[in-house]
């Protein structure tokens, strides 16, 4: 059965390691913060200018001067810090963020990603996504494997304008966990009850299946 958004986030949370600095994009990636494994401490960066982002504020405690990159009101945890946007992207560009999680419209088997613009629709802008994908040491994409009409979003070539090239390292979709390798998408794990064949049918890019593919564990 395909994963829910929460389950995708939960699976991505297993990629976290103790001591990681992590940037979580808008949407499913934001949910990852709810599933940080026991005994692991990570620091969340928000690219508008904070480290140590905490949960949303208690009712009545919201502060207009403390928002995240999605413009939501947030809190700061002990050990956090605030800084200007050029310093924030110095951290990102300089490779100091250990893991970046973001959503995508499409990815390719070479690690290209399209996530910001759909021709014919109003352009909202790339925000920090191009900076993040161009510089992150480790990028995990959280996405649906197919569009609503069942078209694969894991492609040989993106059909939409690119956000970055050859940058995605891992994909956690509602159906599978895949690693981007020189030879294409290496299938690592299946969603519970989803077969390799199910995944193969909806993966338009090169798919590599080596031996037995385990189900994801939660």
């Amino acid at each position, binding site marked *: 059965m395909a994963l829910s958004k929460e389950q995708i986030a939960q699976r991505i949370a297993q990629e976290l390691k103790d001591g990681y600095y992590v940037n979580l994009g808008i949407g499913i990636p934001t949910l990852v913060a709810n599933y940080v494994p026991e005994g692991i401490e990570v620091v969340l960066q*928000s*690219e*508008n*200018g*904070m480290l140590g982002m905490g*949960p*949303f*504020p*208690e*009712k*009545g*405690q*919201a*502060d*207009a*001067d*403390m*928002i*995240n990159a*999605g*413009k*939501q*009101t*947030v809190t*700061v945890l002990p050990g956090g810090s*605030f*800084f*200007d*946007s*050029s310093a*924030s*992207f*110095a951290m*990102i*560009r300089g490779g100091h963020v250990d893991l970046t999680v973001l959503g995508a419209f499409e990815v390719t088997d070479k690690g*290209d990603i399209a996530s910001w613009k759909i021709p014919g629709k*109003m*352009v*909202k*802008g*790339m*925000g*920090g*996504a*191009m*900076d993040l994908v*161009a*510089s992150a040491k480790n990028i995990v994409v959280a996405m649906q494997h197919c569009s609503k009409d069942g078209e694969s979003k894991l492609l040989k070539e993106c059909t939409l*304008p*690119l*956000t*970055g*090239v*050859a940058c995605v390292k891992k994909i956690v979709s509602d159906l599978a966990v895949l690693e981007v390798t020189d030879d294409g998408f290496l299938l690592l794990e299946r969603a519970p009850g989803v077969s390799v064949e199910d995944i193969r049918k909806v993966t338009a890019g090169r798919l590599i299946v080596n031996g037995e593919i385990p189900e994801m564990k939660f």
Partner: protein
Amino acid sequence: MNKVVKNASEALYGIRDGMTLMVGGFGLSGLPENTIAALASSEVKGLTCISNNAGVDDFGLGYLLKNRQIKKMISSYVGENAEFERQLLNGELEVELIPQGTLAERCRAGGAGIPAFFVPAGYGTEVADGKEVRVFNGKPHLLEHALVADFAIVKAWKGDTHGNLIYRHTANNFNQAMAMAGKITIAEVEELVPAGELDPNQIHTPGIFVQRIFQGKDYEKRIERLTER
């Protein structure tokens, strides 16, 4: 070294049609509300505004858009504004989109006398169109140029008569880099104190970057996405 002016209108002395403005803030946070309001009630038009976002319909740069005072927006994300969309689709507004980190660094570079620098962001995308590409450490980078503005308009939490500024929490955002890059930088602050009252170790923007400062009033500090536990 007293840089204090009475209010936003006085701070905007010398602004003219067609000028380039940097406007600090991210979303609706850290916006120079008083100065934007004074601009909105002025006659100035044909502005090029460099600002990470374009406000919402009835707050921030949305006011200037509604009045058709803006000719061109240079931003990283502009997606919350219906009037913006209408003007863009009608060809009444030019828009240049720049990756957020590149935008911040281009402002800092403008203030720091660095005319151009290389970054990896945007390589292989439409952002790279027409830009010089060079490989460093095996990775392709784009040459990006500094941005400067006739006026930079920023908002800080505290400021002193010398123009020293301290920002609060994430309301710093683009204000600090933009304050460096204005030929004239206007700072509005929530609390204006005499020189010597701020700890010199805690200044985010040293006064050398600020030409005019005033105490703002009636801050609405609107929250775009109130999210509670």
